[in-house]
């Protein structure tokens, strides 16, 4: 293995190939520790669960490759309706509320062609599924995750696009994964159910670097919370960037409260937390 290519390996480890190693690594990085610890716990194979009252229910986690190197995940946990479930892929995590139907769906990016996803359920069990995503190797990703406060939002300014324009990809203007198949731009996925106490939310920008049909730079910014209650709270997030020449390891980021009132800079942008994407297209 080349030195410096630990990142992709870590991604694979976290995806559940070697649960013990995952646990050891993730325990040390406590923000990511819980699911990995659950992974390494005595085997909890997808199986019938008998809740305290009511009929037994089947647990299942399905994965299906979608456009733009995404994976559509379907979690069936009818007896855990109303409970949170955290889906993890590599170092990426997002928590969803299982709705009354018992079926939660989410679209995730794929960081590897053999992509593994886990769902960590409220009863302590962890489900594992995999999907083959042949196009995943050609994508670069920039992600932000947070489990309290407003976190950091991800902004991509494609090929010199000014703020608010068509090429400014962000949660408010995310594009669809299918749009990236043309190789002209990326898309953003906002993951996780808002408002879950302690739950992970994430934003991931993905660009089809290998299939790009345009050359230039995609500048990356991380947006500070704008207004609201967030102004008085320190910001904590985990950033992650995957791509050629990058270590691919998560970085925990903290910064003082953006501030409220006259001194506040609502909507401020942190520009240097991730590397700009240098795109060499055909």
């Amino acid at each position, binding site marked *: 293995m080349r030195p*410096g290519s630990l990142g992709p390996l870590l991604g694979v480890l976290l995806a559940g190939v070697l649960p013990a190693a995952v646990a*050891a690594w993730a325990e040390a990085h406590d923000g990511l520790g819980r699911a990995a610890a659950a992974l390494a716990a005595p085997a909890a194979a997808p199986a019938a669960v008998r809740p305290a009252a009511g009929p037994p229910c089947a647990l299942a986690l399905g994965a299906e490759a979608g456009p733009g190197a995404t994976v559509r995940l379907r979690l069936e946990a009818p007896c855990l309706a109303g409970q949170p479930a955290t889906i993890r892929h590599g170092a990426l995590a997002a928590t969803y509320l299982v709705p009354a139907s018992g079926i939660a769906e989410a679209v995730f990016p794929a960081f590897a062609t053999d992509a593994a996803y886990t769902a960590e359920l409220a009863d302590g069990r962890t489900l594992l599924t995999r999907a083959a995503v042949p196009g995943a190797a050609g994508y670069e990703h920039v992600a932000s995750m947070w489990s309290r406060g407003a976190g950091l939002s991800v902004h991509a300014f494609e090929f010199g696009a000014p703020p608010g324009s068509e090429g400014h990809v962000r949660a408010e203007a995310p594009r669809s994964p299918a749009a990236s198949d043309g190789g002209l731009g990326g898309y953003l996925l906002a993951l996780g159910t808002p408002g879950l106490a302690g739950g992970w939310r994430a934003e991931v920008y993905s660009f089809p670097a290998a299939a790009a049909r345009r050359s230039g730079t995609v500048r990356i910014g991380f947006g500070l919370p704008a207004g609201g209650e967030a102004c008085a709270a320190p910001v904590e997030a985990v950033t992650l960037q995957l791509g050629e020449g990058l270590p691919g*390891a998560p*970085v925990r980021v903290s910064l*003082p409260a953006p501030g409220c009132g006259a001194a506040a800079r609502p909507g401020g942008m942190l*520009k240097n937390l991730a590397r700009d994407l240098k795109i060499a297209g055909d």
Partner: protein
Amino acid sequence: MRRLRTCAAVLAALFSAPLAAGSAAAQEVTLSARDGGLTLEGRLLGFDGEFYRIDTVYGELTVDAAGVLCQGAACPDLGSFVAEVTISGAAAMGEVLMPALIEAFAAQRGLGVTRAIRDALGFTYTLTEAGGRTLARIDFRLTTTEEGIADLVAAEADLAMASREASPAEVALGREAGIGTLSAPSQSRVVAFDAYVAAVAPDNPAAVITPEALARALSGELRDWGDLGGAAGEPVRLHAMAADLGVQREIEALLLAPAGLSLSPAAIRHADAAAVADAVAADPLALGVTLASALGGARALPLTGGCGFLLRPDEAAVRSEDYPLVAPMFLYAPARRLPAVARDFLSFLATPAAQRVIRRAGFTDLGTRRLPLSAQGERLANAILAAGGETALEDLQGMVRALAGAERLSHTFRFRPGAAGLDASSRGSAIRLSEAIEAGVYDGHEILFVGFSDGEGSAAANLRISRIRAETAMAAVRALAGAAGDDRPALRALAFGEALPMACDDSDWGRSVNRRVEVWVRPVPRTSRSPAAP
């Protein structure tokens, strides 16, 4: 009572001016040798996880912690030592390049990384081991090269980030303050290269610019694109960085000050180099000087001179500093011992993994590249155009024969006007080349140190000075590379004076690009190791 007996094993004596430290009484400690042979009392100045620094009646001493017991309230807990490293200086280096390298260094060692952002000018990295123990806190202060070196001199930083070589005055201040000789190779290292580039929008028709015209445009003297090879009658809209940014000051010192000019007040100011590039890229009438690492969608104009030669800020030309506006990114260290994690980080900077990180961050790395003669058509064309006068056809033919089958390495040595001593970047080149020779990279090759001069003065004198410089560069590398084995490369010095100019000789910058020693390598067949081998 203070006693000192002979116990050289525990003493790595490093006498220098005591550093200021707070609350003297609280810092008093007693160090006793484990074999009972030595007791030292004094004020604890620091602990790096391996060594105590203590101010005693004998001066400042550095004592190996493994050999002594520490008694006193100020004694650190050896098991929970956290290395504290402060890195201060040029924002151009600290904003993107250094964080990328710290994060890659941590990832390679399986360390967890937390980045606590203080404000726009500072952040702290905390590196944690797999067991959760905090290994190091690395504090960054982003200011300017001057302030970084001042912090190093004042012992307020452990490493200084500099986007230029330390000035003789700064080196002298450092020596007075007891932090050693900043210009010494052991205390300075080039981490990467950036370059200042004249940026225009992709659809701006201007093709090249001379440094003189660039300076006059930046000053507001040339206001029409027609004067700059663009659309006549269209105004030049200037963009620049904020006046207090170190990069902006260095651009003005490099381009404007020598011509006695200053930046036009009409220039639109931006927060950083990327913002200048983005603004320029969006406006076909815009012109700005920015950093190559931040160029984004803007286009860099090649520099030219009166003779028409082009110098492009591409990777090869920046690495060899053939492009004249290169900004080498230096790290300066004090003469004292740094914590182990800081030393490990400095070693990491020379690895291939670090070079990949440097490239990904948009900078030019230090990796050695080879360029065959056949890929240097533009240079040869320049040489043919410049021939005549004192350079005859036979001179060019001789040069091409001498370099046949050889490849130019990116290591290039440059000299100040009239001087024979290497500059700081060149010393770094000499060290990297000698390390490659010692590692056997060039076994079975010959290495040619090929001296060239500018065209000022007589051809004979230029041939002489270019030979002296080639021999100087060769001697520097030979001294560093140590004893040579049988299969080690033969080193030879060649000189061609003014025969192969890279830039026009009609300006100071052009002449300084031309005064150089290039390094070429050529495999030597085992059977014929004679110097005349083709």
